[in-house]
């Protein structure tokens, strides 16, 4: 009889601890969202390197919420400790009102520990290290005026900030939402962890989703704001940039930005460090590691842990819908401002600048530059805008880091 009782208790215990009892309807909705993201990542190949880990993290946390649980210490009396653990040996003690309690630790979930890299702002700068090691700033050095387009595309961040404030978000939350317009995932995560960590899941997913949707969101805006004649402009070939100029560039950028905006130093510093490793040509092994192994490892950790912040309770709320809407506005405004400044440059230079390269100012390297190239070739198949668009594109990375520095400095 006792055997059956024990067997039944074990079955009941397993059932009570299973997802069938623990999960509520919101978790099941999020599991469906995760499956939709799997579809987008695998079938449609929208930013699969990030969307797939994010979706898997989302799936895991909604199946087993304790995977992100923080470690805890429970104070137990001697009797409770012996009942639970079989012994009191090896546990630290705390005496309260002359009663001795034993500190029984409960270890945290796997993703809790991995998430510390996000929470402490470690992963985004490391991703920037890899991005820097992969980026060629040559087109920007050859045509530094591209910085204007990189700056113009950041206006969307500040306009969205206004929208978020009027929708009832606090200043810090509005800043974190606005940064989605920078179209730079690591920057968005970095700023959100500093300003509004409670919104991290929604903001990260909105940012990466819009980055994946660049080829769909940007072209209609670009066509609407430019004339056929402007889109067909063929730009002059860029001057060749010497190795010395490429080596000096990261040093100058990090010095100037770190002095003027210290809050942007971790992001810009690591970006430029990665670039110096690449351009110096003397650290090939480290540069390759930063571009490949390190970048891939951090992407796995960052993706899964960010996805794991999207629990049903956190994600399925009105504020998430607002963030998704505001993120889209931020992205569209950034694109529009970039194109409009491109038009100004077209006028000022007497038709030498194709305004389409302005849309690439919203970071999203190199997708946004590819979109400029594609839309330009629709008008003139012999037009190659890619290298010209890479200038504003990489300027956008620096611009969004500067904008992040401004937001963190003013709002923290």
């Amino acid at each position, binding site marked *: 009889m006792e055997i059956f009782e024990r067997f039944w208790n074990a079955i009941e215990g397993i059932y009570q601890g299973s997802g069938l009892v623990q999960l509520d309807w919101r978790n099941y909705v999020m599991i469906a969202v995760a499956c939709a993201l799997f579809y987008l990542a695998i079938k449609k190949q929208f930013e699969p390197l990030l969307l797939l880990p994010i979706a898997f993290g989302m799936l895991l946390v909604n199946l087993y919420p304790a995977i992100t649980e923080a470690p805890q210490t429970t104070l137990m009396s001697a009797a409770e400790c012996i009942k639970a653990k079989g012994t009191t040996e090896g546990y630290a003690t705390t005496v309260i009102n002359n009663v001795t309690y034993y500190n029984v630790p409960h270890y945290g979930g796997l993703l809790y520990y991995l998430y510390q890299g996000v929470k402490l702002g470690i992963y985004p700068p490391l991703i920037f290290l890899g991005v820097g090691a992969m980026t060629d700033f040559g087109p*920007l050095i050859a045509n530094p005026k591209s910085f204007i387009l990189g*700056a113009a595309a950041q206006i969307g961040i500040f306009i969205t900030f206004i929208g978020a404030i009027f929708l009832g978000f606090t200043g810090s939350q509005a800043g974190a939402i606005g940064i989605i317009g920078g179209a730079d995932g690591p920057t968005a995560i970095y700023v959100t962890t500093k300003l509004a960590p409670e919104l991290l899941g929604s903001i990260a997913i909105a940012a990466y989703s819009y980055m994946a949707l660049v080829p769909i969101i940007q072209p209609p805006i670009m066509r609407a704001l430019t004339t056929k004649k402007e889109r067909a402009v063929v730009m002059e070939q860029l001057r060749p940039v010497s190795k010395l100029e490429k080596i000096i560039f990261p040093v100058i950028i990090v010095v100037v930005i770190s002095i003027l905006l210290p809050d942007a130093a971790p992001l810009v510093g690591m970006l430029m460090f990665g670039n110096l490793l690449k351009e110096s040509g003397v650290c090939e092994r480290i540069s390759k590691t930063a571009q490949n192994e390190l970048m891939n490892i951090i992407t796995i950790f960052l993706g899964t842990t960010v996805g794991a912040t999207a629990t049903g309770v956190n994600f399925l709320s009105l504020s998430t819908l607002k963030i998704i809407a505001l993120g889209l506005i931020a992205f569209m405004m950034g694109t529009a401002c970039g194109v409009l400044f491109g038009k100004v440059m077209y006028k000022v230079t007497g038709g030498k600048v194709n305004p389409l390269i302005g849309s690439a100012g919203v970071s999203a390297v190199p997708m946004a530059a590819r979109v400029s190239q594609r839309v330009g070739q629709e008008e003139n198949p012999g037009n190659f805008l890619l290298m010209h668009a890479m200038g504003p594109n990489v300027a956008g990375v620096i611009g969004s880091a500067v904008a992040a520095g401004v937001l963190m400095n003013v709002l923290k």
Partner: protein
Amino acid sequence: MDLMGKFTISASMLLTGFAIVFGVLLLLIFIIWLYGTIVSNAQNKSTQRKAEKELKKQKQIIAEEKTKTKSKPAFEKQLQKVETGVSDEVVAVISAAVYTMYGSKQKVKIKSIKRHKTQSAWARAGLLESNQPF
């Protein structure tokens, strides 16, 4: 936050963000333009100097060659042993390859260009295998 408060924080953030982002990036444009001009000017000058030196050297070598080989025929005539059927382009390519290998410092002359005797299939296969990239 009341409406006035919202308006104030929005306007101040827009203004601050706009001014700082544009200010910093305009400063960067100026700095990059400045050092780009300085570096490219310095490099142009050094390459110009190098080219001038090289030209002087070449002139000197030609002058020396002329004095030494006054009686000798010109380059085209020196290279008489070019097998018939070998085009001028092939001669030019071989000369360029030899120059690339030995440079201008070593005085190397191409005395003749002959077609290589047809190799056996086994020899060609061996050569191909040892020359293939890893």
